[in-house]
C-alpha cells in the first residue's frame, strides 16, 4: 500500500526521533515481557518446589506454617511428632512411602535436616524429577555422614570428605556448636532450584547422636558427655521428629487419609495437600507480583505516550508535507491514516525490537539466573498470553494515534493547499 510507503519515508526522514521512540517502546516491551516471563516461571518453579508428595504431616498448627518449615525451611515447628505416630502412618496400608523430617540444627546459616534414605528415593520436585547426586552417595549406616545441597557446597566451597561441625539451633550465628561430633561430607546433590539446594541432609541417627547427651536443651558437661565413638555404639532411635511426607498408592485415597490423620487419637496432627497449600502461599505473594505487572504496564504506557508526543510535535513542522500531499490528490482521510500508519509502524518496530532484546537478554542471562535463582527462563516463542499482551500494545498505539490523526485531519482541512513556512 502506497500510504505505508509514504509513512515509512516520512519516518525515515525523521529517523533520529523515530529511532528514539522505537527504542523507548522496545525497552518497555522488553521489560514487560521479561517481568511476565519471570513471573510465570517463578510461579511454575514455586509450584514445582515439591511434587509427587501426597500429604505433608506435622504437629497441629497452621497449614502455611507446616508448609514453610517442612518444604521451604522457613520458620520453626511449634511441636514435634512422636516416632510412634510416624511409624503408625508409615505402615498404613494405603501409604506407599514415608519420609521423616527432623529439623532444628543448622550449619553457617543453612538448615540441617535429619531424614531417612527414603528421602533420596522418593522426594521429587519440578515435573516429577528425582534428586540426583552430582558427587558421592547418600548417607549410609555411619551416623556422622552428611549430604549437601548444591548451593551449600558451592557457597561454602565444600568437597567430598570435608569434615564439618553443625550448630544447635537455626540462628546464623550459633553459639553452641556440636563440635564434639563432626560430620564428613559423603555426597553432594545436583542443583534443583528448590530449598533442597540450601539444606544439609543427615540421617535421623546422626540427628539423634548429636543430641544424645543433651538434656533440657543444653549439652551435658564433664562426665555426662558422650563422644562420637561412644554414640556410634549406641542404639540411635529418635523418639520424635518434626514432620513427615507421605506418598500414597492411590491418589484417590488422599482425602480419606488426610481426614484419618487429622482425627488421629494418638496426638494432634495436621495433614495438608502440598498443592493446595502452595497455592494458598502463592496467593499471599500475588499482590507483589501483580504490582510488578502493573508497574511494567505503566512503563509501556509511558513509552506509547512518548511516541504520541513525538508525533504530535512533528505535526506542525509537517504542515508543508501535508499540503504537498493534498495538492497531489491526497484526501484529508489519507493524511489522517498516514499518522495512524506511522504510529503502527513505530510500535510494531518497537515490539519486534523489544522481543529481540528480550531473547538476547534471556540468552545472555539464562545460565546465571538458573544457577543463582533456580529460575529456568526458556528461550521459547511467545505464548498466547504474551501474544495477547503484544496485540494489546499495538491496539493501544492505534487508539492513541487517533489523536494526532484527528488533529492532522483538521489541520489539512484548514490549511488546504497553502504551504506555510
Amino acid at each position: 500500500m502506497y500510504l505505508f510507503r509514504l509513512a515509512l519515508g516520512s519516518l525515515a526522514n525523521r529517523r533520529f526521533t523515530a529511532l528514539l521512540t522505537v527504542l523507548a517502546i522496545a525497552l518497555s516491551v522488553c521489560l514487560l515481557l521479561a517481568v511476565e516471563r519471570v513471573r510465570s516461571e517463578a510461579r511454575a518453579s514455586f509450584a514445582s518446589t515439591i511434587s509427587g508428595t501426597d500429604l505433608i504431616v506435622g504437629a497441629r498448627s497452621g497449614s502455611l506454617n507446616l508448609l514453610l518449615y517442612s518444604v521451604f525451611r522457613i520458620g520453626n515447628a511449634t511441636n514435634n511428632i512422636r516416632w510412634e505416630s510416624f511409624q503408625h502412618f508409615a505402615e498404613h496400608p494405603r501409604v506407599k512411602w514415608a519420609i521423616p523430617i527432623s529439623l532444628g540444627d543448622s550449619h553457617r546459616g543453612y538448615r540441617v535436616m535429619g531424614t531417612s534414605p527414603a528421602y533420596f528415593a522418593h522426594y521429587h520436585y519440578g515435573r516429577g524429577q528425582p534428586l540426583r547426586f552430582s558427587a558421592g552417595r547418600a548417607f549410609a549406616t555411619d551416623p556422622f555422614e552428611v549430604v549437601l545441597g548444591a548451593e551449600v557446597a558451592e557457597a561454602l566451597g565444600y568437597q567430598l570428605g570435608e569434615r564439618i561441625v553443625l550448630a544447635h539451633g537455626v540462628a546464623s550465628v550459633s553459639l553452641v556448636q556440636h563440635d564434639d561430633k563432626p560430620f564428613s561430607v559423603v555426597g553432594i546433590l545436583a542443583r534443583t532450584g528448590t530449598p533442597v539446594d540450601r539444606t544439609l541432609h543427615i540421617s535421623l541417627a546422626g540427628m539423634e547422636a548429636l543430641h544424645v547427651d543433651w538434656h533440657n536443651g543444653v549439652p551435658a558437661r564433664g562426665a555426662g558427655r558422650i563422644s562420637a565413638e561412644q554414640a556410634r555404639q549406641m542404639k540411635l532411635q529418635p523418639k520424635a521428629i518434626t514432620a513427615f511426607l507421605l506418598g500414597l498408592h492411590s491418589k484417590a485415597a488422599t482425602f480419606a487419609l488426610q481426614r484419618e490423620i487429622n482425627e488421629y487419637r494418638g496426638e494432634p496432627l495436621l495433614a495438608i495437600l502440598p498443592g493446595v497449600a502452595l497455592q494458598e502461599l502463592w496467593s499471599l505473594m500475588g499482590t507483589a507480583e501483580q504490582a510488578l505487572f502493573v508497574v511494567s504496564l505503566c512503563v509501556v504506557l509511558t513509552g506509547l505516550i512518548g511516541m504520541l508526543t513525538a508525533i504530535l510535535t512533528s505535526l506542525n513542522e509537517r504542515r508543508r508535507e501535508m499540503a504537498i500531499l493534498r495538492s497531489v490528490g491526497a484526501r484529508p482521510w489519507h493524511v489522517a491514516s498516514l499518522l495512524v500508519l506511522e504510529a503502527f509502524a513505530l510500535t510494531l518496530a518497537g515490539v519486534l525490537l523489544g522481543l529481540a532484546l528480550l531473547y538476547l537478554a534471556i540468552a545472555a542471562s539464562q545460565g546465571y539466573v538458573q544457577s543463582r535463582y533456580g529460575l529456568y527462563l526458556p528461550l521459547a516463542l511467545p505464548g498466547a498470553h504474551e501474544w495477547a499482551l503484544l496485540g494489546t500494545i499495538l491496539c493501544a498505539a492505534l487508539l492513541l494515534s487517533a489523536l494526532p490523526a484527528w488533529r492532522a485531519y483538521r489541520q489539512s482541512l484548514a490549511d488546504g493547499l497553502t504551504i506555510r513556512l
Partner: protein
Amino acid sequence: MSQPLLELADLGFAWPGQAELLDIPRFRLERGETLFLKGPSGSGKTTLLGLLGGVQTPGRGSIRLLGEQLERMSAGRRDHFRVDHIGYIFQQFNLLPFLSVRENVELPCRFSRLRADRARQRHGSVGQAATMLLEHLGLPAGLLGRRADALSIGQQQRVAAARALIGQPELVIADEPTSALDTDAREAFLHLLFAECRAAGASLLFVSHDQSLAGLFDRSLSLTELNRATKPVEI
C-alpha cells in the same frame, strides 16, 4: 465560442465574520491558453487558489472547471476532481524530501486513476512518463533515483513541473514557481513549462507578482482589477 476550461461567474467569498475578500464578476480561461495573473499579496490570491482547488467553497457564484460546477460537488468528489484535472507547482520546497525524484513525479498518479491511465496510455507506464517528462524538462537522467532534497532549487522546480504535468491534467496552476530562481533561470524554466503544457494540451494559470514575465504569456490579467473586493493598496 467553445466552452472555456475554467469559468468563474459572480464569485464571492468571505471568511466567517470578515468582509468579502473576493468578488469576481467574470473570469475565463480558454483551453490551451497560458494566462499570467498578477497577484500581489493582499489581492486574495491564496483564497482564489483555494477556491479553484476546491479546498474552499464560494459564498456565492459558481466555479466551472471542464463544465462542471465545483461548488456543487461533495468535498471528496472535489478532491478527486482536483487531482484528476489540475496539476500544481508551488513557490519552492514543494517536493517531499524523503521520496526520490521519480517518486515525487509519480505522486499524482498514486492518487488519481485517471492521470495514471493517461500516463500509461501515452508513455506505456507511469515510470516511463516520469522519465520522459523529466528528460524534456532537462533534468539529467542520473538524478532520477536521488532524494528530492539533494537537488538544487532550479532542479527541484523542474521536478515539480513534471509532477504537475504527469498524466496530462487539463489545467496547471503555478503559484510563484520562479520566485526562487534567478532571471535567466526563470525564462528558461518558463519556456520549458510552456513547451510541456503545449505538448500536453494543458492550460496554464500562472500567478505571480513579477510583472516582467507577463509578456511571455498569451494573456495577462491583474487580480486587483479582476477582484472588485480589493481596495487599492497604497505604498
